[in-house]
């Protein structure tokens, strides 16, 4: 295992047990409780590969794609959920789809993700990199909720997306999707 810079700040977690050290893109080192660290499937995999022998030395897992400011936020999320979530048995694909539809964004997570959208996207990417499925899903759900409230034009502007349809193509696709915005029959009318 490579050892990243260890001269920077360390976060100490009060819980006893194995500690895992990770370093961010900037080289800042964090010491995590094993349970917290293993919520990342990437870290879990590395630890399993190493036979979980890294806790007693100064080895540091380098998380080279995660900036410190984002990792600090993710760490808050990990600590909270490590203390509150129960172990879930793996679900079949269809059960997972249904379960996802039934889930709302819990209040705590809503507050956690009540930040600038750019930060949500950075958390999402970091969660993807660290393979923290639940956090990534919550971010996706949050962004999806934002998309639902925006017009096509607003989305293009917000994300800086070029409209690469020709006027003819745009007219055609507008016709094809016009039914999505049709009004349903009103109460008291017969058609």
């Amino acid at each position, binding site marked *: 295992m490579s050892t990243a810079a260890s001269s920077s700040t360390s976060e100490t977690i009060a819980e006893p047990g194995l500690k895992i050290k990770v370093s961010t893109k900037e080289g800042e080192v964090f010491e995590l409780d094993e349970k917290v660290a293993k919520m990342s499937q990437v870290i879990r995999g590395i630890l399993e590969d190493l036979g979980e022998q890294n806790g007693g030395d100064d080895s540091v897992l380098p998380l080279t794609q995660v900036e410190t400011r984002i990792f600090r936020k993710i760490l808050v999320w990990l600590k909270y959920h490590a203390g509150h979530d*129960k172990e*879930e048995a793996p679900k079949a694909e*269809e*059960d997972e*789809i*249904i*379960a*996802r*539809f*039934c*889930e*709302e964004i*819990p*209040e705590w997570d809503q507050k956690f993700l009540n930040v*600038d*959208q*750019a930060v949500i*996207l*950075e958390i*999402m*990417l970091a969660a*993807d990199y660290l393979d923290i499925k639940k956090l*990534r*899903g919550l971010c*996706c*759900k949050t*962004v*999806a*909720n934002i*998309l*639902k409230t925006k017009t*096509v034009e607003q*989305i*293009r*502007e*917000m*994300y*800086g*997306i*070029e*409209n*690469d*349809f020709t006027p003819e193509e*745009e007219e055609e*696709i*507008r016709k*094809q*999707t016009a*039914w*999505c*915005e*049709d009004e*349903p*029959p*009103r*109460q*008291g*009318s*017969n*058609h």
Partner: protein
Amino acid sequence: METPLAQNSLPDNHLGRHLARLFSLSDLPEEIMYEIFFEVESTHQRRLSRVSKSWQKALSSTRLQKVVRLDILASPAGVHAEFEFTSFPDVREQMREAGEPSVFYYHAIYELNRLYKLLTVRTTVLQLNWKEWPHIKDCNILDVALAWSFHTTLARIIKRKTFPPLAGVGVNVRHILLHNAWALDGVHNLHTVTKTRERANVPWTDYTRPIRTLVLRQCRFAVAGRFVSFFAQPGKYQDCQFRLVPAECSSWVRIPLLILDFTTTEEETNERTLVSAVDLHYERPPDTVLETLAAKVEALSEAAKERWRMELIR
């Protein structure tokens, strides 16, 4: 697949610039874009396909066709406008008298046509989210009951496959989620999940009825108690298995119900599976149920308790 947002041009506003930089630098994984689109209701997916060619390509993915989610504005029409709730038997009588209001028919056609455009042979999960009719501010309990009947009837029509435009389109639908979801104030209701594929060779109408009772808000607390007791006494309902989806609900206010199997006749269905809230209201739930409910309520967060209170006074 090309990353949908990878080729963005720079936007004018600060947030947009930040996002564009983020996407272009990080090359947003296609899996994330699918996951975002997956969370969007199906008509919104169609609308979003107008954003750009790369979004159009991503949104036409066969993976996204597997699940169709449609918000339905259930119109509680065809009832006496002045009807006021007096008793549950009165509600039942009013529903019987209401018959089949013509606006239900037209509304059903409208919704079925929308479904026809969304369903494919790849669709395996269909979720119908009932949204309350936005033009009606004060739905009474009968309105809501009728809207729920409409909703469940719609699902029945889909599975019956006798409606010509739908013939064969939704043949692979294995789950129908009747998600009585969003009220105007964002408060959620109970919903049901129906799994029917195991009986694909049996006409659906032979063994089901509208599950209208779940929507009667004023008695949902009692209904919820019943469901809690079902889980505690599964042997009592041998022909119908219930379980929570997901097992640990983030909010107990929404109790999802998965019906894995149905009995084969209407009588049995009435008797065993679909507990009538009307009948249920006559009798006091067993003490064990009340105790379980009390324990559940105590375990709720303050916010969830407040939502319950809001529900009970609607």
